[in-house]
């Protein structure tokens, strides 16, 4: 009874804030609605007997990833999106219809497969940390290490993409100009570039 009430409350909250994420014009509000969605999903995870995943979701997703989003939005001062023209309306309608068709297919197949089957009550060893850890570091150890490697690659990529080029990596032009095609001194640019004097030997 209480569980159903909690589920309905947080499910509605998740859907409402997801709609705000997708529909709102201001990206800051979209980001904050995503936070609400993530927290409602974390509550649903707890209801499903996964408190560790819920804590990780809040810690990593809302505590770090969405904060990163907020930083980028605020520092780059991403403005509101302009009102779209007619062309966008057809696109939106098609996307909406596609989403509804997808939803219909999934709902009908789920209803056919599972209907209203109940699951057994939560056992202590389902919620336990030991079992999860044994699985993570036993059977999925290789995946764990690969994900660590992936995160390292992501850090390097993010630093390279967003950082400014260091002095050492910029091409330096020597004082007297680049050498000409024959190896001799290149054209001098002391005057206006339109009146460049070509080096000797070039017609």
């Amino acid at each position: 009874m209480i569980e159903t009430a909690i589920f309905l409350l947080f499910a509605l909250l998740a859907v409402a804030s997801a709609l705000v994420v997708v529909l709102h014009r201001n990206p800051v509000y979209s980001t904050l609605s995503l936070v609400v969605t993530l927290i409602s999903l974390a509550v649903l995870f707890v209801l499903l007997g996964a408190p560790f995943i819920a804590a990780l979701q809040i810690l990593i997703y809302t505590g770090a990833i969405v904060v990163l989003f907020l930083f980028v939005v605020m520092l780059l001062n991403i403005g509101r999106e302009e009102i779209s023209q007619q062309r966008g309306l057809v696109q939106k309608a098609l996307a909406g219809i596609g989403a509804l068709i997808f939803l219909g297919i999934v709902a009908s197949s789920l209803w056919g497969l599972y209907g209203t089957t109940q699951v057994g009550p939560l056992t202590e060893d389902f919620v336990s940390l030991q079992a999860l850890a044994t699985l993570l570091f036993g059977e999925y150890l290789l995946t764990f290490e690969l994900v660590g490697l992936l995160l390292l690659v992501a850090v390097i990529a993010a630093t390279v993409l967003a950082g400014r080029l260091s002095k050492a990596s910029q091409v330096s032009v020597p004082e007297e100009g680049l050498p000409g095609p024959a190896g001799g001194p290149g054209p001098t640019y002391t005057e206006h570039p339109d009146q460049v004097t070509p080096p000797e030997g070039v017609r």
Partner: protein
Amino acid sequence: MAFDLIATSIKLALFLGIFLGAIAPIMVWTERRFAAYIQDRPGPNRLGPLGLFQPLADVVKFFFKEDVTPAAADKLLYLMAPVLAVLPALTTFVFIPFGPTVEVGDRLVPLVVSNASAGVLLFLALASLGVYSLVLAGYASNNKYSLMGGIRASAQLISYELAMTLAVVAVLLPVGAFRLTEVVAYQQGFLWNVVPQFLGFFVFFIAMFAETNRLPFDLPEAESELIAGFHTEYSAMRFAAFFMSEYIAMTTLSALCATLYFGGWDLFGFTEWAAAGMAGLFLPLWFWLGAFGMAVLITKTMFFMLVFVWVRWTFPRFRYDQLMALGWKVLLPLSLINVVFVAAMTLAGIY
């Protein structure tokens, strides 16, 4: 089911009421008197004996101040930011135990408001939500100093959160569970964690200051640096909300530090001994266990709060690049070394 609900409500009311209702005004008074003592001046001494009614006067002042809202501020976010500051500070309180597992009638009730199996992890997760109030306050104020202060404060918070989380992980390694009740039980059977894991305590202690934006890490809200940082445009009750949320966060983190490293509600068996001595006196054993446990916890928390105030008025402020360098280049490697060391000792069976 009903018994659990009633028990949890009573625990919540008692814990929040006593801890927060008592600590916050005491902290306001303590900060000003202790600061004055360090600076060799009298401090507030006009309102009541020793200036003890000063917090009351402060609250009245906050009520009557004019509430100024910047015209071009983002209204919804501006109003939401102080509320978002208080929520994580309050919700993280529920995981801290204030007594052993007592027998009430025929049930075993652990003296902690929420004995979730992911206790410390949920604590850290909810504490990490405090970043949002800073960023939103800075952004919504439509003031470039506030924005800078907000971004800097939140970057500082997420940087030091990492070192703090690793220090907590090192504490949890020999315990084997995430519940704080088990951490205290482990310390009862062994030494207080500050002795075997001194490096972890050192890292956690420094990260505590950075997490609550207290000196020497308070550049984002310092008066001489960025006007007042992210809470420049807030006045009266909203500023009081930020102010109080900072004290509550300090209290929570001090209580967590006391529980993780200094034995929590247990003072070398004093709690159980005193409760056994007083048992049967008007009220049953579980009441005395809870009362003495909470008294010990409050004493340890107040000790850390005094250290917070002491450090504030003793050290100069870090510059922002020094602050970030300290967090990433010094504390994080130390934290990692601590984790590896504790893991090795746990495997060897020493811890």
